[in-house]
């Protein structure tokens, strides 16, 4: 662990802290249908046009059922659209490499993956997808799935802020406004910056170069005759992939690819971009419920969980593999396997933590090559429910569900029916909250267990032993958590895995959104209990402790046995008996 790494971590948290309020203020305006933004002049006509096109009355609010129905229908349409684009890409324009259509299972997996904001990729972009598929079929979802997540979070926050109200907002208005006034302008700025750093942005065919001097294989004498340099509109896609916590790389190597993430500065900015909107949403929460301290308490809880994870991962990675010593190597350089030299251990460990805390899933290093404990951190991050800042929107709504449970579990101890921000937590709220928690647990453990003993599951494994189990669990955690990063050792592009992972992704997104929206509706309907000395404190150290404790205990209690057989055993085997996988 180095001073440089520490400085980077401190700088990262500092920048995030400073940007939280401005982004939050933007969100307050964007998510208020009448809110003014300084893009109103050019974009207001577009907004009106879109409403007319969608046939939506922006002044009419929806109740939670109708809001959810709109979201599900819209997502289903998007899923089918992308499936069609991928299946028909050979007939569609912008395909200079003349790629054929995707297989049905892979197309389904990919469509589900992008619709659910997961961006799990069972394909390599540069060898599979046309520019059209990337830009229209996929980037479309990078915008709208992010906006849908923010919409659900906004509906839930409205549920908290309102009382005796039937409605929670209008899905179409939220969808349109978030895209127009938030995601599009932010992505534009970010892609310009990324392009300035060297991220490619063109429609050219791939470039073939003769082997350079350094490109000769040193070991077995396999000379690389020629090199293909993939091209494409990467910068525009990378910006939204980070801002929308999508994570699907333009190239297979994702953010480790020099055309996607060329410099330490682009790396730093990309990490910030991942956390930007999720962090801003905590401020939005505080503002809307008129308790800014509460918003910051949620931010602090997330930051604490992030900080601990980042430190553990960084420590594990910089300690490296003790077995290197027996090979006569100095392990003090840390574990560099699967990492880019231009980022090194601290920036790779930090990126891995950020991308899995948020349900982004972009990677700048191969998590599969991390040390067992280093790899445990991303896995646990995902399994905590993607609530440490989390996905755009999904992080906040997941965290609010945890708050509801934490308040219910401990609130009785103040001698009253538990209440959260003046809303009594009753049987119905508990029911829908636990449903939300149950869904990913079922998906992760159920699918992983089936894969770990099924022939279809074991067929795709790249590694044996506990590491193989980690790969399986990671894949389904990533899918159900809508993260999308991978322990790359697993070959998921088989019909069985494609379908199983797609189902896990769909469960983790839509089966979860329904109870979350039900919670929003229930909270909105409730009367407000006036705050007094006996109200449950929702800010301050004790609240933060309770929230962090609940997240950790629920996560730890649920996944510890499985993790014990995976990364934990692997760690002890590595340090204790020197067995590696």
């Amino acid at each position, binding site marked *: 662990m180095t001073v440089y790494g520490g400085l980077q971590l401190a700088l990262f948290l500092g920048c995030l802290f400073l940007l939280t309020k401005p982004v939050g203020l933007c969100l307050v305006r964007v998510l208020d249908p009448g809110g003014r933004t300084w893009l109103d002049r050019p974009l207001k006509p577009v907004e009106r046009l879109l409403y007319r096109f969608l046939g939506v009355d922006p002044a009419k609010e929806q109740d939670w059922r109708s809001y959810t129905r709109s979201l599900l229908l819209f997502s289903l349409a998007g899923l089918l659209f992308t499936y069609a684009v991928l299946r028909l890409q050979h007939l569609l324009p912008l395909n200079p490499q003349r790629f054929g259509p995707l297989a049905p299972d892979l197309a389904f997996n990919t469509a589900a993956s992008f619709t659910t904001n997961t961006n799990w990729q069972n394909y390599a972009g540069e060898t599979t997808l046309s520019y059209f598929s990337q830009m229209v079929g996929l980037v479309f979802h990078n915008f709208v799935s992010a906006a849908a997540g923010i919409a659900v979070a906004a509906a839930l926050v409205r549920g908290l802020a309102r009382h005796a109200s039937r409605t929670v907002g209008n899905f179409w208005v939220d969808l349109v406004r978030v895209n127009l006034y938030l995601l599009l302008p932010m992505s534009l700025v970010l892609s310009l910056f990324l392009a300035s750093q060297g991220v490619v942005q063109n429609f050219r065919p791939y470039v073939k170069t003769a082997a350079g001097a350094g490109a000769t294989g040193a070991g077995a004498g396999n000379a690389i005759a020629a090199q293909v340099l993939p091209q494409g509109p990467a910068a525009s896609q990378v910006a939204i992939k980070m801002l929308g916590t999508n994570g699907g790389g333009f190239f297979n190597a994702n953010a480790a690819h020099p055309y996607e993430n060329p410099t330490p500065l682009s790396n730093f900015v990309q990490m910030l971009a991942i956390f930007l909107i999720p962090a801003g949403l905590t401020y939005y929460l505080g503002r809307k419920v008129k308790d800014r301290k509460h918003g910051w308490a949620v931010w602090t809880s997330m930051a604490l969980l992030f900080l601990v994870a980042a430190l553990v991962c960084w420590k594990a990675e910089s300690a490296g593999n003790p077995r290197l010593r027996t090979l006569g190597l100095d392990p003090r350089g840390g574990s560099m396997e699967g990492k880019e030299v231009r980022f090194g251990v601290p920036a790779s460990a930090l990126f891995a933590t950020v991308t899995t805390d948020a349900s982004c899933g972009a990677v700048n290093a191969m998590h599969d090559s991390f040390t067992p404990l280093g790899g445990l951190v991303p896995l646990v991050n995902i399994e905590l429910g993607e609530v440490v800042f989390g996905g755009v929107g999904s992080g906040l709504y997941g965290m609010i569900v945890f708050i509801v449970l934490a308040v219910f579990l401990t609130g009785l101890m103040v001698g009253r029916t538990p209440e959260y921000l003046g809303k009594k937590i009753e049987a119905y709220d508990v029911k829908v909250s636990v449903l939300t928690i149950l869904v990913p647990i079922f998906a992760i453990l159920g699918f992983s267990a089936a894969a770990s003993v099924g022939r279809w599951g074991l067929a795709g494994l790249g590694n044996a032993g506990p590491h193989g189990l980690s790969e399986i669990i990671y894949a389904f955690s990533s899918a159900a958590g809508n993260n999308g990063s991978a322990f790359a050792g697993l070959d998921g592009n088989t019909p069985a895995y494609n379908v199983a992972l797609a189902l896990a992704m769909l469960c983790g997104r839509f089966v979860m959104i329904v109870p979350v929206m039900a919670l929003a509706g229930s909270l909105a309907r409730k009367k407000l209990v006036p705050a007094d000395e*006996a109200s449950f404190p929702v800010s301050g150290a004790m609240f933060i402790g309770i929230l962090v404790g609940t997240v950790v205990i629920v996560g730890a*209690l649920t996944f*510890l046995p499985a993790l014990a057989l995976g990364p934990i055993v692997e760690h002890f085997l590595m340090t204790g008996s020197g067995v590696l996988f």
Partner: protein
Amino acid sequence: MPVLKRSLFDKAIVSRAARDAVRKLHPVHLLKNPVIFVTEMGALLTTAGIVLRRGSEPAGFTVQISLWLWFTVLFANFAEAMAEGRGKAQADELRKTRIRTVANRIREDGVPEPVPAERLRKGDLVIVSAGETIPADGEVIEGAATVDESAITGESAPVIREAGGDRSAVTGGTRVLSDRVKVRITADPGQGFLDRMIGLVEGAERQKTPNEIALTILLSALTIIFLVVVMTLSPFGRYSGVPFTVTVLVALLVCLIPTTIGGLLNAIGIAGIDRMVQKKVLAMSGRAVEAAGDVDVLLLDKTGTITLGDRQATAFLPAPGVAAEELADAAQLASLADETPEGRSIVVLAKKYGLRGRSIADLPGAAFIAFSAWTRMSGVDLEGRSIRKGAPDAIQAFVRADVPLRVHDAVSDIALHGGTPLLVAEAGRVLGAIELKDIVKGGLRDRFERFRAMGIKTVMITGDNPLTAAAIAREAGVDDFIAEAKPEDKLARIRREQAAGHLVAMTGDGTNDAPALAQADVGVAMNTGTQAAKEAGNMVDLDSNPTKLIEVVEIGKQMLITRGALTAFSICNDVAKYFAIIPAMLVGVFPVIAPLNVMGLRSPASAVLSAVIFNALIIIALIPLALRGVRFRPLGAAALLRRNLFIYGLGGLVAPFPGIKIIDLIVNALHLV
């Protein structure tokens, strides 16, 4: 009702509970409690394993695990049975008073005919004479009688029941001591107050409260989660080449699901009602007890609740040129025959001025003038002296002279401070004023202060004028008051508070209180009150002591806190159990994992067994806490939460580590595995 002053752990109760615990093993009974139901299924599974001789581990281990799993279920049942114990014993006592009687029913032609009490129906008219038992609940419609209600209230002093007004309700099972009354029956057989009381103290009609339902959902969800965890662990084990036996998986499951709170949840609820009964408050439902904990506005009647109910003389304020002793002497003489509490308090106060006790017998020539609504004064004519005391304007009319300025000021000053002024005059001369004051009950100020800290607002309701009301409100330390209140004001205030999101508690006894009692979230009816009031409220106070509302709220809060504390404890326990069981499950195949065995448990078998034993014993250990309730402290939410979180949350996290370790040492010392 004569409350049985039995200890919670009375021998008879314990042995009866032990028997009931076995009876409650019936799975249908346990279905209502998912956590314990799953535990029982687990016990069945491991027991079946012994019988079928499946599994690789030594039979002794499986037998012991099964045994402790059965104990876990039994302990949970025992907790519930213990909580029911005192109520059941109480109900038995009450049943004894439900003797068969013959009632004198009045036929339609007006002729009485004897019928067995159980054949009486609502609306029947009966005649009850001295020495007879009232056959069923009813309302006196003719006559008045003294009634011995000790069977219901435990109070031996007879009470008067009479037609009309707020004292007309009679209860089946009580006895008429004198006179005879005509009663209209208001309850069908089996629906009477005594029957309801029996049902309530026995807990037979108990339904889950809203909060219990929510908690049960959460506990069921945790149970489902851990079922999935344990069931998926088997394939993971198969992948890893670690064979997990059914016994060990069931042991893990039972240790992880929240058996502690699952086993004690019912007991906590029943004990809450039982604690109310001990305070002689009958809660009509557990829901009412729970609502009591949530209440944040108390409507308190001034008279009887905040003040003693009688005004007392507190000072003599003499006119210029009159000695205080002279005034006291005159006041005492004028009050000697006055048997009202006010009059008596004047006599008592005068003694402090060096006047010996006098009695009417000492003054043979005295002619006492009684108070009348017409003259609004009373007094005495004695040896040519004519002394009067009364309302200021009446006395002024009596003396036909101006009241001295100082006395006039004193009168307005007394009124300003919430007192009632009386003037004393003799022979056309005003001697001075007497201050009569409502005496605020001792200790209330502190109590209200504590309530404020808990976020509970107190509102005093009084018929007094605003000035007097404000003075008493200030003295008692209530937050707000309604002066010159009419019965409908109560109802309006309750509605207003509820609309603002508050939960309101109140007491009442009169028929005109009934709408408000019904509207309030917690309505405590006085047992001396009318039938209408008792039916409208959701609690009845057998002592008819309105101040008890405060204790009712405390018991409600205590019940909620106990539930929360044991839930937190139960869930935090799991962390330690993981550290006991997971290493034990894996160490056979992966010896390198030994460092995770932080408690240094001797062997995998003893680790698993110790965790299961701890899990069972902790239920027994916490029964007293569940039954008595977590000690209630009137603190603000933050302080209360911090305290309870520290004790039960952190305690729950830490306690099992030494607990399991000690059990492991004992298990190994006894060579149990």
